[in-house]
């Protein structure tokens, strides 16, 4: 192993797991690894030494990673408060997204109210990644501990993987089926009796997104997908910077920033196209948006701070 890559590896472990882990665990491992390779007398022996060292390094990374992912007693309050922030913003986001349907509900009776309630899974799926961002900002702004940052990143990773998987299933399996059903129902007028509203196909329709509802050309699909990945990315980066700069106040600013356009965008949709409002998330391309927001939140929000990056001189 070259000297440069050994130091780079040590710096990375210090950034990721903290100075103590780098000094006590990874530095001796790498030093022994280097000496073993140097002592090997043939090319085959050197290759074997490299492989054994690499395997040991992977085992150590897994062991230290797992031990860092388990919350310690003193970290639990901070992790708990961040989880509370995420939950609060999840509820707030869901409420804001459902508010535009309230007049409809009051106006047209419980049938349309029921349809609005069927939107709950979609709105939850939309609000969850948004809620992760303020929580990540809060953790990033208050945490100066690389161990905690790593642990929180692991928790967020798990949440993000679950959310993205669920949204991908909705987009690729549920949406196309529901879209066909929706188009047929629109052609033959919407259901007006409770039995029809309770049919599973209608509930699936509420879960669906616009990608299958409005027929588009492949080029247009790709363009919309690219745009839906780009603009949240830019907003998220800017929002994250603002959140880091403003610390706790930044959480509120960021939340308002995210929820305001969502509320405005959804408010005019029911009034503009009553039937189309069954799919209000079409404006946002929910799955792509959520995936982009979540993964960017992970990448940006919990990067260990610069003052954690030092490695003791070897």
């Amino acid at each position, binding site marked *: 192993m070259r000297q440069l890559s050994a130091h780079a590896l040590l710096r990375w472990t210090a950034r990721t797991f903290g100075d103590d882990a780098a000094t*006590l*665990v990874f530095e001796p491992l790498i030093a022994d690894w280097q000496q073993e390779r*140097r002592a090997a007398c043939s090319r085959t022996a050197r290759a074997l030494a490299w492989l054994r060292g690499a395997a040991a390094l992977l085992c150590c990374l897994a*062991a230290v990673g797992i031990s860092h992912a388990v919350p310690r007693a003193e970290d639990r309050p901070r992790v708990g408060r961040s989880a509370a922030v995420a939950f609060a913003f999840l509820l707030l986001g869901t409420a804001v997204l459902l508010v535009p349907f309230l007049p409809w509900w009051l106006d047209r009776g419980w049938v349309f109210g029921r349809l609005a309630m069927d939107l709950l899974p979609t709105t939850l799926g939309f609000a969850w990644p948004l809620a992760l961002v303020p929580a990540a900002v809060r953790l990033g702004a208050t945490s100066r501990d690389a161990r905690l940052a790593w642990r929180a990143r692991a928790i967020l990773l798990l949440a993000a993987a679950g959310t993205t998987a669920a949204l991908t299933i909705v987009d690729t399996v549920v949406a196309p089926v529901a879209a066909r059903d929706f188009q047929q129902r629109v052609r033959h007028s919407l259901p007006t009796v409770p039995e029809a509203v309770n049919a599973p196909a209608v509930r699936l329709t509420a879960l669906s997104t616009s990608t299958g509802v409005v027929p588009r050309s492949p080029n247009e699909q790709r363009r919309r997908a690219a745009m839906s990945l780009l603009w949240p990315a830019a907003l998220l980066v800017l929002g994250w910077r603002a959140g880091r700069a403003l610390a706790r106040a930044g959480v509120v600013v960021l939340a308002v920033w995210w929820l305001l356009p969502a509320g405005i965008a959804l408010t005019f949709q029911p009034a503009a196209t009553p039937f189309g409002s069954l799919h209000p998330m079409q404006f946002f391309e929910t799955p792509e948006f959520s995936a982009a927001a979540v993964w960017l939140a992970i990448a940006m929000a919990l990067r260990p701070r610069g003052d954690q990056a030092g490695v003791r001189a070897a």
Partner: protein
Amino acid sequence: MTTSRLPRLSATERVILELLLEHGELFGLAMVEASDGRLKRGTVYVTLGRMEEKGFLDSRQEPLPPGATGLPRRLYTPTGHARQVLAAWRAAERVMAGHLSTTEA
């Protein structure tokens, strides 16, 4: 004194301490080679780091010869505390073994 306050010594930690008491100063890879398969290279460094945090081991970096490159190896020695803990556990084992043999007889 409650049980939770007793210094714990895992099987791997005990193997490491016994090796160090037998051979003196060792570095991680040498311990793995001397342990006849009882220590694994993928976990020994994590255990050594934990033992150092617990105050069971002291370590120093091996001085590099002039002109040598690379990171210096870390050599480990057991602390007095570790020797006392190991002795206490050995004594406890002897007492327990004696008690069990008396009970079974």
